[in-house]
């Protein structure tokens, strides 16, 4: 449905995207990567807000780089950081954005907006200025505006940054609910976001897709190859020179170090109970070939 082929983009000497290719189908797709990995560049490119240097993106067979309107007609987009007009209520701003999205029938607009406001629990604040919303409310407003016009593709870029745990969970639930019959791309650097809701994902690092698959599949790739051990802090630091360290967690009296190794690194190392975070680091650091 959405095919990305060899997408590259540079900003001066910085290669934000290096020949990225992906094929996406309806469902919630997680794009996981650290800050600076190129996720936002990819999202903006898909949202037709940036042009790549090379590559091709087709949506339903149409090259959206040549015909960006083909994508815009189907797109709902929640950028990583967005502002709102001052002194403008949620109702008014949603109404305006709905018109821009082509919801020209007044009754349809009203029904959609009421429904979305209800869904994101902003009905009672619909006449309040969006500029005065809290971070969580604003993000929910963002989801609501992204869903206006019932888009076939929904792109959300780092949507949970700054949300408290409760808000975050509610937000992810909302996203899950929308992904039944559309492509939802969740771009995030927070592993738990993807772990909790995505059936398909990719890990992105330094402008490249370094892994692709279901979270469980990615975990399976490293099963039996991740080991943990508690040790002195200095020893943990020294280990980074000699082993493929995935993570180091500081605990009272030392650190718990996770390493990637085909066999046990030695005495005292225990096979790890794997979580997606282990798979993320293992792929990000290119320990997994």
């Amino acid at each position, binding site marked *: 449905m959405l095919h990305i082929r060899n997408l590259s983009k540079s900003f001066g000497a910085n290669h934000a995207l290096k020949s990225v290719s992906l094929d996406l189908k309806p469902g919630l797709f997680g794009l996981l990567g650290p800050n600076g990995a190129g996720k936002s560049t990819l999202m903006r490119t898909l949202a037709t807000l940036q042009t790549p240097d090379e590559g091709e993106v087709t949506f339903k067979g149409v090259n959206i780089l040549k015909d*960006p309107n083909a994508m815009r007609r189907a797109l709902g987009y929640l950028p990583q950081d967005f502002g709102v007009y001052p002194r403008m209520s949620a109702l008014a701003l949603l109404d305006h954005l709905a*018109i821009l999205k082509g919801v020209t029938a007044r009754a349809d607009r009203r029904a959609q907006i009421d429904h979305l406001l209800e869904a994101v629990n902003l009905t009672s604040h619909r006449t309040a200025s969006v500029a005065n919303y809290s971070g969580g409310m604003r993000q929910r407003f963002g989801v609501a505006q992204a869903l206006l016009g*019932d888009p076939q593709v929904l792109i959300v870029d780092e949507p949970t940054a700054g949300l408290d745990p409760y808000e975050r969970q509610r937000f992810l639930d909302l996203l899950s609910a929308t992904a039944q019959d559309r492509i939802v791309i969740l771009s995030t650097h927070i592993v738990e976001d993807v772990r909790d809701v995505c059936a398909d994902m990719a890990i992105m690092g330094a402008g490249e897709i370094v892994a692709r698959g279901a979270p469980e599949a990615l975990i399976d790739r490293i099963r039996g190859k991740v080991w943990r051990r508690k040790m002195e802090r200095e020893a943990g630091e020294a280990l980074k020179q000699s082993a493929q360290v995935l993570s180091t967690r500081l605990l009272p009296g030392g650190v718990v170090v996770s390493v990637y190794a085909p066999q046990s690194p030695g005495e005292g190392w225990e096979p790890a109970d794997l979580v997606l975070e282990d798979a993320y680091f293992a792929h990000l650091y290119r320990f997994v070939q």
Partner: protein
Amino acid sequence: MLARLLPFELKLHFNQVGFWVAAGILALIGYFAASTDSIVLGAAGGEKIKINGALVVATQIGFFSFLPILFASVFVVTGIMRDETAKSLEIVHATPVSTFDMIAARMIGVLLATFAVVLAGVIGLFAGQFATWTDKEKLGPVNPLFYLHPALFLGFVNSALLTALFTAIAGLTRSRMMVYTGAIGLLILYLSVGLFVGEDASDLVLSLSDPFGLSAIQVITEFWPAFEQNSRLVPLVGYFGLNRLVWFIASLVVLAAMFRFFPRGVASGRSRRAVAVANPNASLAPRRLSKPLSEGILAAAWSRCQFEYLAAVRSVAFAILLSLAIALFALTVYVQAEFAPEPLLPTSAQMATAAAASVLLPMLCLIVFFSGEIFWREKTYKILELVDSTRVSNVALLIGKWFALSGVILSVLFTAMLVGVAAQVILGGPDLNLWTHFQLVMVSYGPDFLIWGGLALFIQNFTPNRIVGMVAVAAVLVGVMFFLPQTPVYHPLLNVGRLPTGGYSEMNGLGDMLTFQWTLAYWGAFTVLLAVISAWLWRRGLNPTFISRLRGQGGRLGPVTAGVGVLAVCGFTGAGAVLYKGYSIDNTFRNQDQTERYLAAAEKSLGDRLDDPAPKVRDVRVSVDMFPETRTARVTGRYRLENSTGAAISELVITLPSEKRDSVKALQLDGATEIRRGPQKDPELGDESVRLFRFSPALAPGASTQLSFDLVTPPPQIGDDSPILRNGTFVNGELLMPRIGLADFRLRDKDKRRKRGLAELERLPEREDMAARQFNFFGRNSDYVTFQASFCTAPDQIPIAPGRMVRSYEKDGRACRDYQPVEPIANFFAFVSARYAVKRDVWNGPNGERVPIEVFFHAPHAFNVDLMLDAMKKSLAAYTRAFGPYQYSDLRIMEFPYANFAQSFAGTIPFSENIGFIRDPGDPKDIKRIDLATYVTMHEIAHQWFGHQLVPGETKGFNVLSEGLTEHAAMSAYETAYGWATARRLVERRSMEGYLMSRATDSEDEPPLGLAEGQQYLDYNKSAWVFWGLRHTMGADRVNAALRRLLNQYGRKGPPYPTTLDLVAALRAEAGPEWAQLITDYFDRITLWELSLTADDVTLTQSGGGWTADVRFAADKLVASQETGEETSVLKQGEALNEWVEIGFYEKDPRETLGAEWMRIERVRVTAKDGRARIQLPRKPAYVLLDPRRILIERNVKDNVAELGNAA
């Protein structure tokens, strides 16, 4: 800490592109201002006043130091407000750096950056004088001090003032918009500060009211002669230094207040955040739509437009700009009504004009500001990604923004129109006409502003950010308005958005609507084309490159938009072709540079023919068929010509009113053949208006011939408006009829002549030149002529020409009249036609004369008609008594539209509506008011004696005999009508100030009055002053007796014509030896007196029943060199002082009454620099004033007065 912070601040500014752009622009402006004529920064140099002279440079740098209003606000936002814009406030304000160090470092950074930009302009100015193309004649000695001094005291102090002000606004409001709005408000307030202060303000108030110091410089240097302007730095003592000190201290005070109240940390009241959590049970399942999604261009555009419009008109900036426009209007109307000496009546046209004019500057600021705000709104509020990722088309976004900006523009105009209407109603203005208000405000100005708005949005679309966009828009608009017309490439087709309306008159409405309509089509199509290009290359997404836009990343043109684009191209090129054909093919449009080149070429080609001997016109018979309905005329007639040169004439040039071949139906000179395109003609000059005839045989001395003509005045065309109007035509005869010989078309400006490779223009002939005295100032081609005119016009109009009306009749349904003067008149005719109301009266003279007098006027303009009739009678009475009989059978005044002058033809005076008919004459007891209707009437009627009876010869000083004596006569009559004090004020305002200021700024050398060569400040201003002085010394009776003597000798006679030698001789004959020296000083050389005293110089003693005043005062008399302007005391030239000086004593401050209401005036003879006088007075005076009636020509009279509070 401060020292450690400062380098960072400077680096911050120097890394900004805006800084270098501003510095570069100012440097280039300075460079070209100093090296070319294309850019004038407040003061223009020339051969006499040098472009690198001290005062010109100071004025130019003063101009530069005012420009930071435009960019210092940006520096302040960058420097002072960056914590807000970069959202780093909480980090930076939480550091231990003190508020003082933080703000002081930033402010000094802004100040140095601002000053550095000003310095770039100064460097450009300095470098410009070394450009290879700079006219070396305009340069004086290079003196860096002339640049450093104003750079410091104007550039630096003004930079400090602006930095302080904007920093204070930024610090206290933390609002970027308030900083920009403050800058715009300051700009508008500064430009209108003159209105606040008023013309009667004291020098101190004038000096201090200008925070940038330019008014102080003007006050100090007002009357500086050229050599002082070139060599003298503006002194720091006095008003200028005071101004600089006061405003520098003011900037420090503002800063101190800012430091005191600067709010550190996060501003309170910002966290009114609503809190709610998501609904855990809600479903986001999509709702079905009843209607499929669509592009919805119109709906989206309308929604966008509504949103943008409301956002703009609800903003603080809009409120401030609109308020400023209204305030400016109110101020203009108030000042006009309360302070203007000759205020206009609040008619619909005047109120609408004032409203529209008040809007102009705020509107330009509005277009610059809101084009940026509206175009960049999504990016400004970081909502761009939401909007640009929607399906909304570029066209919808563009239309929404363009219509929103247009709506804002129209809202301001409409408000201005309503304010104008309201003001007219409140002021009780006559005949409220809403259509006039609409035409003048909305039709005249609306299209210009809307086109500029479209252009502004187009420019914003191709700039990298809002600030650069605003600067670019401002630069383009300023360039189009002020600089483009000066450039050699200028053509009306390049004048973006300037729609020529031809002015507005209540008599005739808007002028040339044909050109207006085509120009509107041209620029309208251009704007649509810009819109289509904008939609095609719309700035969509995040920082799109131009290439990516070309590739269609922003979107593609739909068929409809593309179709509109094609239509726009067709409209633009089609209308452009029509305009080009009109301007440059059917007619010959020439810009300033082309005009100069054309005239230079014409002079090289035809200049020799200017002095060709020609026969004189003796008799004129003309039939004028005027068609105001089609704005055409057909003129047939014949001249009888007589060769009075004493030699045979073989060739004759005839100049026709139109360059068009088909405007000539017939042109025949008996005994001569027309030579077409002779080899001596420059092809460029081969237009149809210059015709050369060759006599065969040559026209013998004393022989006569006849020129017959049948000419057509074509209808108005683009590039060639017709002089015939629908209502209110006033055409000079030369616009309808042939002229014998060539008009003097030569370039007059010395600098331009030199630039075009022309020799310096020969001066007018000397007064002793008897050959020159065979010709009069009306032209070389005639003396008095006999004249008969038959004049027909539209049936509802009245045709008027000089002479007695001998027949009024109807012919072919048209109104016709025949005119024939009772005696020969000057070869100088007016043809006037309009739908007139008429008011008539009769002047009965003391010798049984009976002269019908008439005022023909636009019916709604009856306000001053009685005053004019009264002035006509008073003038006829006064002039007949003083100078002799009126020579014609009738006297009539006819109103005409648009212009601002009146002109005196034989017994016939066309008089523009603006100069008298719609002026408020004011309270006759108020000496500050000038009853212009009366004064201009008196002036023009005086021309019936001086101009029409006494016709000056074509020599130096010629116009003193016309305008000079006319000013004398009119001032005398006005004094009789309104009293001495009113006349005293009139001569002060009209003549004395005009002379002193103009002589200081005239780029040509000033000759003595008797040798004036057409300089208005001599012919009108100095003459009026001189005759004022003569009336108060030798007496009005003796002055008038001299003029009667002159009229008796030369009046109503042919050649030889009189000169100022005859005038001076007549005055000397009447004045006797007592005033001989004064007459010499007045007429034969440029003399300036200097008088001064202080209270300590006056001793009052009580004696008997009165008081004795012993007065000492300083006196000197300077004579200015005609060549250099340098002034030398006559004592240094071995000449003795022997002057009559008047001393006035007062009980009230004479400065408030312009020297009227004196207790006593005593005339004393002064023979040394240290003047002394002992004068008996009936009462104790409180003030003493030297030369209270301003008989002596003196620049600085502020030190002529002393208050004697403790003198006893």
